[in-house]
């Protein structure tokens, strides 16, 4: 669509530019600053070059956190996206139940993240939690505070609980935008349900699903509060994801140099992967 060339439009953007620049550029420069300097805690700083970057990139601790982060993010994407689409497909399109479903499904999205963690902690405790107690009663030896496998199971289940609704709501928004005529045409042609899904519903959902995958990727990669409140990164380091590790180094140990270098690497990984996701999906759409 034809937009008018108008340089004065910059004035409309200025307030946003000013606020975001204040919040993004100054802190980012602080981080860059720390990442190339060494300090001995007496407020004197020395040029350290790329030392911290090298240290972080070569450290096993960082590799382990990054690995855990990747496993976590790809697991929840592999569960939440198909599950969300499946639930959206089975939801009623019209009728009195639609708003009820939507409101109930959106509920987890508006609960503060540490409350989500605390709620799941209480829910999953093996002695007083409904989930923990039930699992133990039917014969599983379940204890998420002691066994890494159980901690992972709980963490992933919590994220599925917390965020699948976002995928459902996005996919549902795509589905309700399909005109009835499409379905009628498919019926006349005698299309099977899978064919309807493959050739009518999926293409219509592509755009919103792109948004869903991007949002879920970015947010799960940055996740901090929920797993921290649930497991504290433990048992051991088994659920220490990237953000948890970073906060430990930056605010716990106050190792500013390594923390800053790690921050930048972390941010760049998210940017690069979001860009890859985005281009790949946009290319598929163009085809």
């Amino acid at each position: 669509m034809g937009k008018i060339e108008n340089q004065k439009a910059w004035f409309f953007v200025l307030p946003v530019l000013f606020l975001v620049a204040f919040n993004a550029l100054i802190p980012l420069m602080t981080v860059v600053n720390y990442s190339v300097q060494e300090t001995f805690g007496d407020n004197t700083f020395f040029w350290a070059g790329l030392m911290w970057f090298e240290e972080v990139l070569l450290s096993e601790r960082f590799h382990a956190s990054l690995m855990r982060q990747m496993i976590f993010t790809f697991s929840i994407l592999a569960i939440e996206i198909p599950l969300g689409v499946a639930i959206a497909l089975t939801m009623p399109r019209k009728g009195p139940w639609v708003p009820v479903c939507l409101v109930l499904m959106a509920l987890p999205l508006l609960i503060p993240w540490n409350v989500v963690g605390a709620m799941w902690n209480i829910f999953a405790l093996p002695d007083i939690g409904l989930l923990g107690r039930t699992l133990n009663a039917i014969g599983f030896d379940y204890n998420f505070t002691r066994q890494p496998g159980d901690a992972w199971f709980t963490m992933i289940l919590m994220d599925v609980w917390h965020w699948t609704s976002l995928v459902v709501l996005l996919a549902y928004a795509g589905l309700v935008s399909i005109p009835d005529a499409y379905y009628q045409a498919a019926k006349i042609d005698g299309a099977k349900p899978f064919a309807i899904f493959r050739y009518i519903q999926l293409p219509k959902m592509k755009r919103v699903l792109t948004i869903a995958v991007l949002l879920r990727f970015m947010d799960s990669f940055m996740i901090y509060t929920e797993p921290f409140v649930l497991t504290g990164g433990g048992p051991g380091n088994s659920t220490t994801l990237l953000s948890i590790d970073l906060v430990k180094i930056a605010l716990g140990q106050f190792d500013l140099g390594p923390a800053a270098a790690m921050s930048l690497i972390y941010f760049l990984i998210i940017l690069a992967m979001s860009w890859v996701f985005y281009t790949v999906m946009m290319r598929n759409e163009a085809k």
Partner: protein
Amino acid sequence: MRNLSRFVPALYILFLLLPIYWLVNMSFKTTNEILGDFTLWPREFTLENYITIFTDPTWYMGYVNSLAYVSINTVLSVAVALPAAYAFSRYRFLGDKHLFFWLLTNRMAPPAVFALPFFQLYSAVGLFDTYWAVALAHTLFNIPLAVWILEGFMSGVPKELDETAYVDGYSFPRFFIKIFIPTIAAGIGVAAFFCFMFSWVELLLAKTLTAVDAKPIAATMTRTASTSGYDLGLLAAAGTLTIIPGAIVIYFVRNYIARGFALGRV
């Protein structure tokens, strides 16, 4: 098969409600009952936990603080995002695409990365432990989101609307306030909803930027849990109360949720 699939959303909603039920259940129990028995509903029903919260200022001020910075953030984010989104949806200008992408990259910045620099920045400008610090810090991810959503809604409004208004002799500010804003009211509602949502649920930055005077309710919860032992009933009651504002907000936007979550771009 058709009837069977009806159960999928119902089962899913049941799964969503179970942990919430357990939290609410706990909030009405006494500490003795929580630790002593495993009961599916409160046997000794008590409102004591809620009474504690509503009578102790260190608790209820947490809610006031949270609502204060969330409101400031929502109003501020939407107010500055409106003209910017209009510029992006209507005009081409030097560097527009780069600027839009750069804005969105801030949505990808992990709060953990910014926690420490934000602490130093807001201490330096003297805003530490005020509503404004948290409200401003949250604009980092809320402004890009608001611009993105509003731009989607505005691009759906035909340009002829603007042109007709100018022909009728409207000045730009009058057109924008009298005609354009009412036209995209739904979009503004959705953008405000998302700003409220992300500011309300975020804790890492809110906790880092406050100490006493502006401490959010969610932070009060974590501190109480660690200082006075593990008073689960109280914790559960405080948690239950944090769900309510969100539930009210969802109820108001329920008819826009489906479209709004697609950011107006289906």
